[in-house]
C-alpha cells in the first residue's frame, strides 16, 4: 500500500449548538485505502465524512487534501465524490443523465460522456438501464446508480455514507462484495461510514472506531477485533465478555476469582484492568476440569453454533460453542492464554460486559435505523 496521506484531519472539533459532535479528531487516510468510520449513531462519523466532503466546516482544526489545506474549499471544487445515504438521485433525470451529471457540469465532450457513462454502468452491472427512469429502479439498482454517478468522475476519494443501510440483508452482503471488488478495480480511496460492525470488518483495510465524538481506535479489522483498546471497542465490535480484573504480573491476570496465564504485559503490578474474552474462545469442559465453573441459564440455537449464557458468580458469560449443553447443567470453562485480552481501564469501564440483561430483541431495537436519527441531528 502506498504511504502517501491523501486526507489529513488535524485537531478537528465541531459543535451543533450546545452539542459537541467532534472532539479534537486527528486522522489521516492513506491513498487507495479502504477506511471505515464505525460507530453508533451520534458518534460523529457522518459529520467527519461531511467535513471531508465540504458540507460542514470544522469549528477548529484543519483539513488537508493531498497536502493542501482545504478548509474553505466548497464541495464542488473538491476532488471527492459522495454516495449519499438514500442515494439522492435526481428524479427528473434518467439513469444515464444521473450518471452523466458530473461530466456534463465539467463540460466533458459528449462522445467521452457516452463512453464513460457506459463503462461505469457496466462496472456496476447496470448495462442496458440507461434510459430507465430512476423511480422505476429497485433499492439495489438505485444504489448502483448512486455509486456509478460518483465513480464516473474519477474522484481521488469516494465518500460513502451508510450506502447499504436501506437494503435488505441478502442484498447488503452482495453489495459488500461488489464494493470491495470495485475498490480493488478502481484504486480509488474509499471512506465508508457505517454503524454495522460486520460490514466494517469484512470490507475495510482500516477501521476507525468512533464514540462520543472521539476516535477510540484505529487499526486493521483483525487488530480491532483481537486487540480492542477499551471496553467500548470490545463491546461494539463482535460479542465480548468484559470483566473487571487485576494484572498481577506480566503474563498473569486475575479475574472471576481465578488466575489466568495470558500473553499481555507492560502493566503495573496489581493494576486494575478490563479483561476481554470472546465468546467463541471459551472451551467447555467437564465441571471438575474447568478453570471456572458455572450454571447454564439459557441456550439458543444459532445455526452454526449454540449460544449459551453461563452464570459464574453472578456474572453472565456468553459462550458460542458447537457442543450442546442442557440449560441448568453445570459446566466448566477453560480459557487459553491467547484468548485473553487485557485492556487499560477507560471511561467506558464497567459500562459493558455482562450478558445478564441481554436479549436479542432489545439489541436489535436499540440499533434500529440509527442513520435516521443521525440525519435529523446533522441537518
Amino acid at each position, binding site marked *: 500500500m502506498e504511504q502517501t496521506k491523501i486526507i489529513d484531519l488535524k485537531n478537528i472539533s465541531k459543535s451543533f449548538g450546545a452539542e459537541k459532535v467532534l472532539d479534537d479528531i486527528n486522522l489521516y487516510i492513506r491513498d487507495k485505502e479502504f477506511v471505515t468510520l464505525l460507530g453508533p449513531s451520534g458518534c460523529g462519523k457522518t459529520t467527519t465524512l461531511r467535513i471531508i466532503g465540504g458540507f460542514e466546516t470544522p469549528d477548529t482544526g484543519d483539513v488537508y487534501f493531498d497536502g493542501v489545506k482545504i478548509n474553505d474549499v466548497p464541495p*464542488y471544487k473538491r476532488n471527492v465524490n*459522495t454516495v*449519499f445515504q438514500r442515494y439522492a438521485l*435526481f*428524479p427528473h433525470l*434518467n439513469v444515464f*443523465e444521473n450518471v452523466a451529471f458530473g461530466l456534463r*457540469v465539467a463540460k466533458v465532450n459528449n462522445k467521452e460522456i*457516452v463512453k464513460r457513462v457506459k463503462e461505469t454502468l457496466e462496472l456496476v452491472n447496470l448495462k442496458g438501464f440507461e434510459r430507465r427512469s430512476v423511480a422505476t429502479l429497485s433499492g439495489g439498482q438505485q444504489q448502483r446508480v448512486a455509486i456509478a454517478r460518483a465513480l464516473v468522475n474519477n474522484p481521488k476519494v469516494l465518500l460513502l455514507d451508510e450506502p447499504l443501510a436501506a437494503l435488505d440483508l441478502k442484498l447488503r452482503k452482495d453489495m459488500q462484495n461488489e464494493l470491495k471488488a470495485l475498490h480493488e478495480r478502481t484504486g480509488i480511496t474509499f471512506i465508508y461510514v457505517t454503524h454495522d460492525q460486520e460490514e466494517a470488518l469484512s470490507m475495510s483495510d482500516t477501521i476507525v472506531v468512533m464514540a462520543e465524538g472521539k476516535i477510540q481506535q484505529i487499526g486493521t479489522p483483525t487488530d480491532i477485533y483481537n486487540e480492542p483498546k477499551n471496553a467500548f471497542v470490545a463491546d461494539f465490535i463482535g460479542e465480548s465478555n468484559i470483566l473487571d480484573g487485576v494484572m498481577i504480573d506480566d503474563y498473569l491476570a486475575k479475574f472471576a476469582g481465578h488466575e489466568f496465564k495470558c500473553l499481555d504485559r507492560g502493566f503495573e503490578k496489581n493494576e486494575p484492568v478490563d479483561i476481554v474474552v470472546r465468546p467463541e474462545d471459551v472451551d467447555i469442559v467437564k465441571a471438575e476440569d474447568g478453570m471456572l465453573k458455572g450454571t447454564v441459564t439459557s441456550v439458543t440455537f444459532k445455526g452454526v453454533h449454540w449460544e449459551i449464557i453461563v452464570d459464574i458468580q453472578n456474572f453472565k458469560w456468553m459462550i458460542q460453542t458447537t457442543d450442546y449443553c442442557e440449560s441448568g447443567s453445570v459446566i466448566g470453562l477453560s480459557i487459553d492464554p491467547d484468548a485473553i485480552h487485557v485492556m487499560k481501564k477507560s471511561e467506558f469501564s464497567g459500562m459493558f460486559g455482562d450478558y445478564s440483561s441481554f436479549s436479542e430483541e432489545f439489541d436489535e431495537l436499540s440499533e434500529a435505523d440509527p442513520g435516521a436519527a443521525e440525519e435529523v441531528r446533522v441537518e
Partner: protein
Amino acid sequence: MKRKSFLEKAAAVPHIVWMILFIVAPLLFVVYFAFTDAAGNFSFSNILNLSNYGEIFLMSVLFAFLATVICLLLGYPLAFFMSRLKPSAQRVFVLLLMLPMWISLLIRTYSLLALLDNGGLLNSLLAKLNLPTVKIVGTPGAVILGMVYDFLPYMVLPIYTTLSKLDIKLFEAAEDLGCNGVQTLFKVALPLSKSGIISGITMVFVPSISTFYISQKLGGGRFDLIGDTIERQFLMNNNKNVGAAISLVMMILILISVAVMNRFGDDDGGELIV
C-alpha cells in the same frame, strides 16, 4: 359496486345546484349572447367584429405577460430563499406573504393608489423634502406594478411549496458533482420545481389578463384592457352581445394558455440522451 348512501348523494346536491345556477347557466348565457344580436337572432357579427378590439387584446396580453414575468423573477428567488430557511423562519415568511391575501384585492389596489397618486403619500413626502414629484399613476408601469403587487403571493406560494418538499440532499449531491450555486439552481432546483412554476404562472397570468379595476384605478382610466372593455360593454354601453363575445374569446384564450402550460408540466421525463 358499492352503492352510495342517500346522505352521500345528498351532500353533493347544494354544490351541484350552485354550480348549475352560477357557473353553468352563466356560461350558457355568455355563449347565447355571443352568438345573437340585440334582437335575439342568431348572428356571427359579434364575433366577426372582435377584430376592432385586437389592440386591446394585444395590450392586455402584453401587460399580463410582463406582470407574470416580473412576478416570476421576483417570486422564484424569494421562494427559493424561503425554502432554505429554518422551519420557524419559513412560517413567519409564509404568514407575511399570506397576510395581504386576507384583505380584498380592491382595497389593496386602492391603498396602492393612495400611496402613489399625484397627491398621494409618496409625492407629498417628496414635496416636503423639496424633491421633484413623480407621476406614477396613469403610466403603464403603474398598472403592471399593481398586478405584480396584487398577485405576487400567488406566484411565490406554489413555487415555495414545491421547493420546500425537495430533499436537501439533492442540492448537496449537485454540489458534490461539481455544481456551484447558480448551476445547482438551473440543473436541479428549476427542473424539480417546474410544477410549482407552472401553477404560479397560471395563477398570476389568468387574473392579470382579466383584471379591470387595477387598470382603471392605477391606469388613471388611460388604459383599456379586456376586463375594462367587457365591463363597459355590459354596464355602460348596455351591449351584452359584444361583451359576451369578448368574454367568450378571452375564456378560450385562457383555456388554451392553461392547457399549454399543463403540457409543459406533464412532460416529466428525463432529458434525451445524445
